[in-house]
């Protein structure tokens, strides 16, 4: 046990160092998303490349476990799953619930079409190019078709999160469609397993069992969503009485973990439970503050998830089927791009939006390997075809992130209509000029303290361009931007609803009054030259 733990700590240490360095190189020098660097780091240090090399008597750092589809130890896989839960919980928090609900109908069409097109293209190309597979009902064709269907929501969520695109119409549609994809895939997998076992072992298809799987998956999703939406505001309202944001965050994450476990119990991926928890809380006033707190911890765990995903790429399995595997991977790629992009054009998105959605649905991850693993264990596919699944995952994981980033870089909305979100109605802007950026920042800090005193939650939105803050309490949402103007002057802008305007003005007024008092206190301090000499007098004295 203690040796296993020792190995685990070493593994985690190397994973963190490698993912952080390679992720940095990818982001800074190759201008690629960090997640790609993390995946590549996993491939390099994983059991199929450097991690498989024996280090003297210690043996390999990443030994392959026996009798397991997943090429890492259960403990490491567990920690990587925890990373995926952090990621999807945070993605849920960043999703805009009203937009998610509004676009869930469109997402259903897109997700369903993506699964159908990918499945038939994958199964079809297998029949066409593999002589040993004669029909679409052949277990090999069925499994490879299923391999094509599952989208890895993790990669997409990370890229959308990094680029602040989760709350866009395309972002929520991708997230909703990917969640739906998981539900459909699990149902499809049970159908495929049922048909395959009949073909391999004889007997009749157990439609009752398949119906049960489908019902459990769909019912879990629906019940959790409804309960989450109803209960989340009550939960935060009661928890806020305790007055401690850290406590709310930790309890909320605890709920995410419980729901992740229950999700797995219902046959769905764990990340679905985590996403539902985040999504339910996204409507509450603590969502931004929770997200900011979760992000600081998740940066330790999320790279482990992607590194382990990268570790699943078995390069030696690709050798014997390289030609077919490449064609298959490209077909799987096209299947999602067309299968999801094309219907997007008919449900209100323009070509730009359709391309974004298609690209967002491309990444494949561990679900691909799990499906192929089940096929391999049941004898439905052989080791060669398992290699095809590995190649599909590799191509999709490496090619999709840059494509998705590029798709979202193009300016303009991907949605044909203009979104009329509630918070944009009756919005007013209050502007104030300040003589310097420091003064503006100082007063705004005091204003934000004032908001916190009033029971508001303040979180930083984006510090890269302007200092921007999200201030929220229940339905009152205020945004505060501090902008640098010419000659080091600064402008402070408040964005709020008309009915909250007086509140914001009074709050600012009180803070300016406080600041004036502070300035007077400063000016009543001792002569500044005298202070300087007091500070410097002993600096150069020799003892």
């Amino acid at each position, binding site marked *: 046990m203690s040796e296993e733990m020792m190995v685990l700590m070493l593994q985690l240490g190397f994973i963190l160092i490698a993912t952080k360095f390679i992720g940095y190189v990818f982001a800074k020098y190759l201008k690629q998303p960090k997640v790609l660097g993390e995946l590549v780091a996993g491939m390099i240090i994983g059991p199929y490349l450097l991690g498989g090399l024996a280090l003297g008597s210690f043996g390999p750092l990443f030994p392959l476990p026996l009798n397991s589809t997943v090429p890492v130890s259960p403990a490491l896989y567990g920690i990587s799953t925890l990373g995926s839960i952090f990621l999807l919980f945070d993605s849920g928090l960043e999703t805009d619930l009203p937009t998610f609900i509004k676009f869930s109908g469109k997402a259903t069409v897109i997700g369903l079409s993506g699964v159908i097109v990918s499945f038939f293209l994958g199964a079809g190309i297998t029949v066409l190019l593999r002589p040993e597979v004669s029909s679409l009902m052949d277990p090999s064709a069925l499994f490879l078709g299923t391999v094509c269907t599952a989208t890895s929501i993790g990669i997409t969520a990370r890229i959308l999160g990094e680029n602040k695109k989760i709350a866009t119409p395309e972002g929520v549609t991708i997230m909703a469609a990917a969640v739906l994809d998981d539900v459909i895939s699990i149902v499809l997998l049970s159908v495929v397993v049922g048909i395959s076992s009949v073909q391999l072992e004889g007997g009749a298809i157990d439609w009752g069992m398949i119906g049960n799987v489908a019902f459990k998956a769909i019912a879990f999703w629906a019940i959790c969503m409804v309960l989450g939406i109803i209960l989340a505001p009550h939960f935060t309202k009661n928890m806020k009485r305790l007055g401690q944001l850290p406590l709310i965050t930790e309890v909320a994450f605890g709920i995410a973990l419980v729901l992740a476990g229950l999700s797995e119990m219902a046959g769905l991926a764990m990340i679905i439970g985590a996403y539902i928890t985040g999504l339910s809380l996204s409507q509450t006033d603590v969502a931004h503050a929770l997200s900011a707190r979760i992000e600081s911890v998740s940066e330790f765990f999320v790279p482990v998830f992607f590194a382990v995903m990268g570790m699943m790429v078995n390069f030696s399995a690709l050798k014997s089927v390289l030609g077919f595997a490449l064609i298959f991977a490209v077909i799987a790629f096209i299947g999602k791009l067309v299968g999801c992009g094309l219907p997007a054009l008919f449900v209100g998105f323009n070509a730009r939006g359709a391309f974004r959605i298609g690209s967002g649905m491309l990444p494949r991850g561990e679900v691909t390997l799990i499906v192929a693993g089940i096929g391999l264990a049941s004898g439905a596919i052989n080791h060669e075809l398992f290699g095809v699944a590995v190649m599909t995952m590799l191509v999709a994981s490496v090619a999709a992130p840059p494509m998705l980033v590029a798709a979202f870089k193009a300016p303009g909305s991907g949605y044909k209509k203009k979104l009329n979100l509630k918070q944009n109605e009756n919005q007013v802007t209050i502007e104030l000029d300040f003589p310097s950026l420091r003064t503006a920042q100082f007063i705004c800090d005091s204003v934000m303290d004032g908001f916190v005193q*009033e029971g508001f939650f303040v979180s930083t939105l984006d510090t890269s361009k302007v200092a921007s803050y999200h201030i929220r309490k229940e339905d009152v949402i205020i945004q505060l931007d501090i902008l640098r103007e010419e000659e080091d002057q600064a402008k402070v802008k408040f964005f709020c609803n008309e009915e909250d305007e007086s509140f914001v003005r009074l709050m600012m007024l009180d803070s300016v*009054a406080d600041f004036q008092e502070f300035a007077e206190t400063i000016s009543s301090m001792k002569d500044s030259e005298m202070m300087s000499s007091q500070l410097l007098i002993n600096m150069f004295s020799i003892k």
Partner: protein
Amino acid sequence: MKLKNVLSEKLVAIDLKGTNKEEIIQELLQILVDNGKLKDKELAFNNIMERENQMSTGIQQGVAIPHAKTKAVDNLVACIGVKKDGVDFSSLDGEPSNIFILTLSPSDHIGPHVQFLAEISRIIRTEESRTKILEATSTKQVLSVFGI
């Protein structure tokens, strides 16, 4: 924020006697003392005057909102006073103030103190509301402007 949880008829005076800022504030504080809402009138007065010295709370259109955070109260308390002739409150527009809303909130509590003021200010922003308050002949009529 429910205004009726804080305001009642006993906390409204429609004919203040004071002739300057200090007298008006003292008179309003006395209303709170009489209703058992204030523990230390002198402390509250000092805290309010400190705030007034930083920046006058005489806003515009005859409205003044003297307020402070103080240890003299346990909860958010407020009262409304009207002086039809108005007094000089060093207001922003230089006009005399005739509607006064005094608010005190505990200094060590997190609570919707500014939100309460904002709610009040939002209501008396309109000319119609202010006229109704100034023409009111009973405390009930004043409260009805605030929907109480």
